[in-house]
């Protein structure tokens, strides 16, 4: 996994030679903690060149079916068959579909299973195709509408079969923005955020976003068409410890893990503490509270905390009332 520049890499937590993803293709506990903190994970060249090259023609056909519909026109009569929203993923894109082959690759299944279960619901997908030289640019946005307050989340997989070269204008996104509840369009005002990133990477790279991550398509200044396939999935099982938990007991901390008292440097809390350049000072504490809430849901441990912010408030009144 490539770590974004400007973000401290937790060397003691995830050694260079650690198998990522886990040997059975599911994520590790520390990877999922990183997803909770940053709102995304990135896997460079996860898919081989053979499928990267073969899939382009099918993505083109899919785009031919999707683009007219996106602008209110019926797709052509011979359009590629597409899944309907709420179809179980296992029933989408049956063989010999190459999109289906990508979905069923063990390394992709491992990511999906770890975050939303082995057979989530298909929400929608889309092919983002931008010809070389295109100046089309999106404002920063969040997909869909203002979200619910519960901790459940969808994932959005972003697959770049052709990669994006340096300066090629890949997707702009803001690490750590996923736990802010905003109207989709309100974040358009931010032209630049310190620490934001623009995707560039080799063919076959897959990123997985929490659905709340702020992002925007960017112009394509290169002379090559830029392809990106996006797939949104909804969980239909509790998203509790679905990943490879071999390392869970070793790194899942208790509520006493507290920077201003005694703290661990090898715990989930230490991963969650890592802020983004735009999250400074006291603001980061509120981010940490939201991350701890999400980790409570994912871990199934309602007593989890990072730096004691939640536990202090929850137990003060009962303690003051004399509860044990």
């Amino acid at each position, binding site marked *: 996994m490539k770590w974004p520049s400007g973000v401290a890499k937790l060397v003691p937590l995830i050694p260079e030679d650690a198998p990522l993803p886990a040997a059975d293709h599911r994520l590790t506990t520390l990877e999922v903690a990183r997803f909770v903190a940053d709102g995304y994970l990135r896997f460079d060249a996860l898919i081989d060149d053979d499928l990267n090259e073969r899939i382009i023609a099918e993505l083109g056909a899919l785009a031919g079916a999707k683009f007219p519909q996106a602008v209110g026109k019926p797709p052509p009569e011979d359009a590629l068959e597409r899944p309907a929203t709420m179809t179980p993923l296992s029933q989408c894109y049956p063989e010999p579909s190459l999109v289906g082959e990508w979905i069923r690759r063990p390394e992709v299944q491992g990511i999906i299973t770890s975050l939303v279960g082995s057979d989530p619901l298909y929400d929608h997908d889309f092919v983002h195709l931008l010809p070389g030289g295109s100046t089309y640019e999106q404002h920063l946005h969040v997909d869909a509408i203002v979200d619910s*307050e519960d901790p459940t989340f969808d994932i959005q997989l972003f697959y770049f079969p052709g990669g994006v070269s340096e300066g090629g204008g890949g997707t702009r996104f803001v690490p750590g923005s996923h*736990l*802010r*509840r*905003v109207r989709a369009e*309100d*974040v358009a*005002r*931010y*032209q*630049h*955020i*310190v620490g934001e990133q623009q995707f560039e990477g080799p063919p076959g790279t897959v990123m997985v976003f929490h659905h709340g991550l702020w992002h925007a398509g960017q112009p394509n200044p290169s002379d090559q068409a830029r392809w990106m396939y996006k797939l949104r999935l909804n969980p239909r099982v509790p998203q509790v410890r679905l990943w490879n938990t071999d390392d869970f007991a070793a790194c899942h901390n208790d509520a006493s893990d507290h920077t201003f008292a005694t703290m661990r440097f090898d715990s989930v809390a230490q991963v969650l503490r890592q802020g983004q*350049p*735009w*999250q*400074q*000072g*006291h*603001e980061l504490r*509120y*981010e940490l*509270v*939201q991350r701890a809430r999400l980790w409570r849901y994912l871990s199934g441990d309602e007593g989890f905390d990072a730096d004691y*912010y939640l536990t202090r408030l929850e137990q003060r009144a009962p303690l003051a009332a004399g509860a044990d």
Partner: protein
Amino acid sequence: MGSRQQILHLWLAEAALDQAVVAWAFHDGTRGGGPGLPAGDPPYATGVAALEDGWHLIQSSMAAPVAAAHELSQLRHEFLLERRIESED
């Protein structure tokens, strides 16, 4: 002959104008005829640094009530600055 407005939005790490810039947006009513922003990411280290470069503060975010349950939404500490550039138009 008239003036054209340049607008600079700054979002700071916390509520004081001398704190770090974490986001910004620039809208140029001179269509490139006036001065641009200094090179840098961000262009100014703090809000005060923008004042020192000739920007005038015209609005800052009000102290908002405490959000329920530590909820986070948009960037909280927004400062709006302007420069007026004389134009031959």
